[in-house]
């Protein structure tokens, strides 16, 4: 440690007077001087950061997975039953309302979207077990999905009881592989193609079919009505103006949304009822506290160990602000050194756990920003607290 400091200080004639005039990278050299300790420190901070990153990732995956369906629908505006408390629940409305919407100026097309979450039972073609799944349906002449794998099978979907299934559904559903004969609600169906979507927290798998097959395969009570109207606008039409016109024309129990509003609607619901936010915030906070403590221990130990060296620095004329600067820079470097590897490990873990749990686990700008800010704050805060401690313990010596 001393050697590092001494080399760092030579030649003594280059004595920076002001804080932060770090001509000599003292913070970095201090850290480098004991590589084994540095590695231990970075591992400690890195693991705490990883803990936060995982919690942030899980939270994002949870909220993202409920928005997946909306993302897949090819529309500028959406209409649905005004009694709905969230998009992904069954609350159909009469198809006649679609015709009213079609007559509104600026509307290019209004396409029906059918869905079910409670009355759809899929039989695994390989082992014969039956599972609840979600079912989506549309008119193959009026496609509504942004999934190329679905749109490639429009002609085949027109056959009675033809279905497309989700290759990424939970494996126990047996939707992968090459089987073409399966059963839906106890009736034989033909698998005419497969798409890749993946399950979410409520649904294990998805079956997509034509509106006609939907009416055939679902129980009479469940197949009535349209779940949503997917509206495309004419080029140049203003979504806000058209939405207002739609609201005037449609009965009061139909609600009109832009895609952004529909996202917000679903996100609001999740935030209102689900505890995911609380659970993952709790995990993130614990990660932060753990990290702060590790950082505090590191900085405190380092400070007390190097007290004589800092005293030397002071004796040769460096002000307290210079020393404070060195310690804070050291903390900043620790934050960076802990965060970078943790971030890359988190990418691997996201991928691995995401594939295992089949959830949309991945990083985002928000996760990067929040996790780095928390890491930096945690290290700087700990460094500041450790300095206060050391000063309180030994005011005369350095500061």
């Amino acid at each position: 440690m001393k050697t590092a400091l001494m080399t760092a200080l030579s030649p003594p004639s280059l004595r920076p007077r002001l804080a932060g005039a770090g001509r000599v990278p003292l913070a970095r050299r201090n850290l480098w001087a004991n590589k084994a300790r540095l590695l231990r420190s970075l591992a400690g901070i890195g693991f705490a950061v990883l803990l936060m990153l995982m919690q942030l990732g899980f939270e994002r995956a949870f909220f993202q997975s409920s928005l997946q369906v909306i993302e897949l629908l090819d529309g500028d505006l959406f209409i649905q039953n005004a009694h709905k408390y969230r998009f992904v629940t069954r609350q159909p409305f009469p198809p006649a309302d679609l015709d009213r919407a079609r007559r509104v100026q600026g509307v290019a097309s209004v396409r029906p979207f059918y869905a079910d979450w409670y009355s759809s039972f899929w039989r695994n073609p390989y082992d014969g077990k039956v599972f609840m799944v979600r079912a989506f349906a549309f008119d193959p002449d009026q496609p509504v999905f942004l999934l190329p794998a679905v749109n490639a099978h429009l002609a085949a979907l027109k056959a009675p009881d033809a279905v497309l299934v989700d290759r990424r559904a939970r494996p126990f559903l047996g939707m992968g592989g090459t089987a073409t004969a399966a059963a839906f609600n106890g009736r034989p169906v033909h698998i005419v193609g497969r798409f890749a979507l993946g399950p979410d927290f409520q649904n294990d798998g998805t079956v997509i079919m034509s509106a006609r097959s939907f009416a055939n395969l679902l129980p009479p009570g469940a197949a009535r009505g349209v779940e949503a109207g997917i509206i495309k606008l004419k080029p140049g039409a203003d979504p806000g103006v058209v939405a207002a016109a739609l609201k005037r024309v449609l009965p009061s129990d139909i609600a009109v949304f832009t895609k952004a509003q529909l996202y917000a609607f679903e996100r609001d619901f999740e935030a209102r009822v689900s505890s995911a936010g609380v659970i993952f915030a709790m995990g993130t906070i614990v990660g932060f506290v753990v990290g702060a403590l590790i950082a505090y221990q590191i900085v405190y130990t380092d400070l007390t160990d190097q007290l004589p060296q800092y005293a030397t620095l002071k004796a040769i004329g460096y002000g307290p602000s210079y020393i404070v600067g060195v310690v804070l820079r050291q903390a900043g470097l620790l934050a960076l050194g802990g965060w970078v590897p943790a971030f890359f490990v988190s990418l691997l873990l996201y991928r691995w756990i995401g594939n295992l749990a089949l959830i949309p686990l991945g990083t985002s700008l928000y996760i990067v920003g929040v996790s780095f800010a928390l890491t930096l704050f945690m290290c700087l805060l700990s460094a500041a607290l450790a300095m206060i401690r050391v000063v309180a313990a030994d005011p005369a010596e350095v500061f």
Partner: protein
Amino acid sequence: MSVPLAWRLLAHDKRRTALAVTGIFLAIALVFLELGLFFAVPRGGLLLFDHMRFDLMLTSSQYQYQSDAGAFPAGRLAEVQKLPQVAQVIPLTFAAAKWQGGEHGEWIDLFVIGFSAAASPFTVGDINRQLGTLRRPDTILVDDATRPMFGPLTPGRVVAIDGRPETIGGTYRLGTGFMGLGVALFDMGNFARLFPLRGARLVNLAAIVLKPGVDADAAARALRRSLPDDVRVWTRPQLNAHEVSYWTTRSAVGVIFGSGLVIAIVVGIMIVYQTLATQISRHLPQFATMKAVGYGERSLYRTVAAMAAMIMALGFVPAFLAALWLYAVIRQATMLPAAMTGARVAAVVLASFAIAMISAALSMTGLRRADPADVFDGRP
């Protein structure tokens, strides 16, 4: 000798010791938190079964988990009743309906449970006291964990459920678990009026109570022999194990909390090891001196181990109390039944002390090499 010495070493620099204890405290609290979450998930899935009286459970052979239970013909109940070991068979029906009375006019999904008020399968006092109310026409009991978005659950409030006006007769405390945002109980007669298409011909679960002294496993075997294969007979432990495995391995929730738990354990071990190793290495000069004046390695190890155990004990107690508080927060915020169990405390105690001893042993390697001339070098 080693214990008092360890104590005096710790007491000598109280601030450092406090820091170490805080580290251990956090590590253990973190592990408790993740354990609580991980086990709260299957407990949430088991909520209904945990509040029912039964020795055996009859389900459809398509049974996946409690909320996706499949259905079987009600005719099977009479076949079960015929067995001499069986005292009582109590059928339950499940359905999804819309609660057309959300606080902002929303129509919200409600999980409906139907059973005969003449024979309650529940062990919940609130339910069993209100069976008379439940028997009134179009009257329901609502779980008080039903989300606030359902509006007030005041007795006497009339709510349209799937278009049919139903009166809230009262509330009870069981929990909604993973059944949905809200749960309501219906007497079988009211259930059949609300779902006329389905009626009472199909049953989702049947709780079987055996006569006193009957062996559950033997009765289950007898039932399996006599019943057709569209139904499945579960003993309590089998059903328990099945639900736990569903929620921990098949659901996304299980995988998420499972991986959270693994990470927490790794972080916990790292903190404990680092903290103890730092504590011990700081006392290296003292240990080296002891070695120089003739103390054997064994006695040094005992001192080191005693130090590690003491720090661990000092950190464990507040961590346990903090965990109790965290569990209360989880219960409040997530409505999942997070609870401290004796087995969990024992497991964490054993694991913590095992890690403490391993850390002590690992830091002994440094001590073994300790040479008084070396350790004092460079230290003021």
